C-alpha cells in the first residue's frame, strides 16, 4: 500500500490531481447534461455530493461485513437508497429544479464517480479517511460543474444564476445551451486542463 497521505492532501487531491471530471473522465453524463444553467449544475453537484458522502460513510463502516463476491451489488443497493432519498427530497422541496433535472437525478445511481470511489477507496480505508476523500471528490465535481455551467450560461443566455450579466449588445450563443455546446466546451476545457498540467510539470522538474 502507498504511504498514507496527510489529511489535507487526501482532501485536495479531489480538486485537481484526481479531479473526477477533468482528470479521471468519470461522471461525464451528468456533467454534460445538466450544465446548461448554473443553478442546475449546483443542484446536481450537491445531490451527487450528498449521495457520495453518505455512501462512503456507510460502505466504509460496514466494509468488514460485506462478502467480497457481492460487494458491487451491495454498493449499488446502498447508493440507490441514497439516490432515492435525494430524488424524493428534491421533488418535495424544490419541484422546479427536480423538473429541470428530470431523469438525471435518479441517474446519479449509475454515476461512475460514486461506485468508483466505493470500490477504489471506501472499501479499503477507514471511515474518517473515506469521508475526507468523498468530500474532496465532491468538491472537485461541484467545481467542474460550476466552471462548465458558468461558461455555458454566460455565453448561451447572457445570464449568471438568472441575472443579466452581459450588456444589451450581447447576442446569446444559442449553441452553448444546446447539447453541441456541452460537448465542445468540455472538450476545450479538457485540453486546457492538460495544457496547465504539462506546463506545471515542466516547471517543477
Amino acid at each position, binding site marked *: 500500500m502507498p504511504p498514507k497521505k496527510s489529511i489535507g492532501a487526501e482532501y485536495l487531491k479531489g480538486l485537481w490531481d484526481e479531479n473526477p471530471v477533468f482528470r479521471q*473522465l468519470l461522471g461525464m453524463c451528468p456533467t454534460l447534461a445538466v450544465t446548461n444553467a448554473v443553478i442546475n449544475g449546483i443542484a446536481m453537484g450537491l445531490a451527487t455530493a450528498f449521495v457520495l458522502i453518505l455512501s462512503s460513510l456507510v460502505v466504509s463502516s460496514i466494509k468488514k461485513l460485506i462478502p467480497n463476491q457481492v460487494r458491487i451489488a451491495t454498493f449499488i443497493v446502498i447508493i*440507490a437508497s441514497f439516490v*432515492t432519498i435525494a430524488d424524493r427530497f428534491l421533488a418535495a422541496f424544490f419541484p422546479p429544479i427536480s423538473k429541470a433535472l428530470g431523469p438525471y437525478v435518479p441517474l446519479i445511481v449509475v454515476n461512475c464517480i460514486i461506485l468508483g470511489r466505493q470500490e477504489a477507496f471506501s472499501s479499503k480505508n477507514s471511515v474518517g479517511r473515506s469521508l475526507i476523500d468523498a468530500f474532496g471528490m465532491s468538491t472537485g465535481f461541484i467545481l467542474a460543474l460550476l466552471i462548465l455551467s458558468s461558461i455555458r450560461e454566460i455565453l448561451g443566455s447572457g445570464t449568471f444564476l438568472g441575472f443579466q450579466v452581459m450588456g444589451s449588445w450581447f447576442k446569446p450563443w444559442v449553441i452553448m445551451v444546446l447539447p453541441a455546446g456541452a460537448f465542445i466546451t468540455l472538450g476545450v476545457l479538457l485540453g486546457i486542463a492538460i495544457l496547465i498540467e504539462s506546463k506545471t510539470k515542466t516547471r517543477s522538474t
Partner: protein
Amino acid sequence: MDILTVFVAAILVNNFVLYYFLGICPFLGVSKKIDSAFSMGMAVTFVMTLTAVASWMINHWILIPFGLDYLQIVSFILVIASLVQLVEMFIRKMSPPLYQALGIYLPLITTNCAIMGLALLAALKNYNFIKTVVFGVGSGLGFTLAIVLMAGIREQLDLADVPKPLKGAGIALIVAGIMALAFSGFSGMIK
C-alpha cells in the same frame, strides 16, 4: 404511426448519446475501432431491448399496483445488473462465437447509464408495452449509429495533426459536439 414516430425519434432526433448524454463512457472509451464499436453497439441494443421488457413488467405489474413507485431506482438497477449477468451466462452457453465477440463488453454495460436511462425514461414517458419495446430497440440502434460514426471519424483522426493537449478525449468531445450539431438538424422531422 405513433410507433414509427417513437422509433425514428429514438434513433435520430433524441439520440441517446448526442441528445440525452447517456452512455458517454463507452461512447468515448470503445470508439477507437469501428469493429469493436459495432460490437459494443450490438451488445447495448440487445441488453436495452431486454431491459425495456423487464423494466416495463416490473413497473406495471409489481411497482405501480402495490404503490411502490419510490422503489423504482433500486429495483431497476438490480434488474439491470442481474439481467446482464444472465445474458452473459446464456450467451456463453448457447453461442460461444457471439460470446467471443461481445465478451468483454457485456459486464461493462451494467454501469452504462444508457441502460438505466432507458428504463427511467420509458417509465417517465408512460409508454405502453409495445412502445417501450420499440423505444428500447430504437435507442439501442441510435447508440450504435452514434458510436460507429464516431469510431469512423476517430480512425481518420489518428492521421490528423491535432494540437497536443486536445489529443484523445478532448478532440473526441469536440467531434461529438459537431456531430450533435449535425444531428440537431433532424429535430424538424418530428412534430
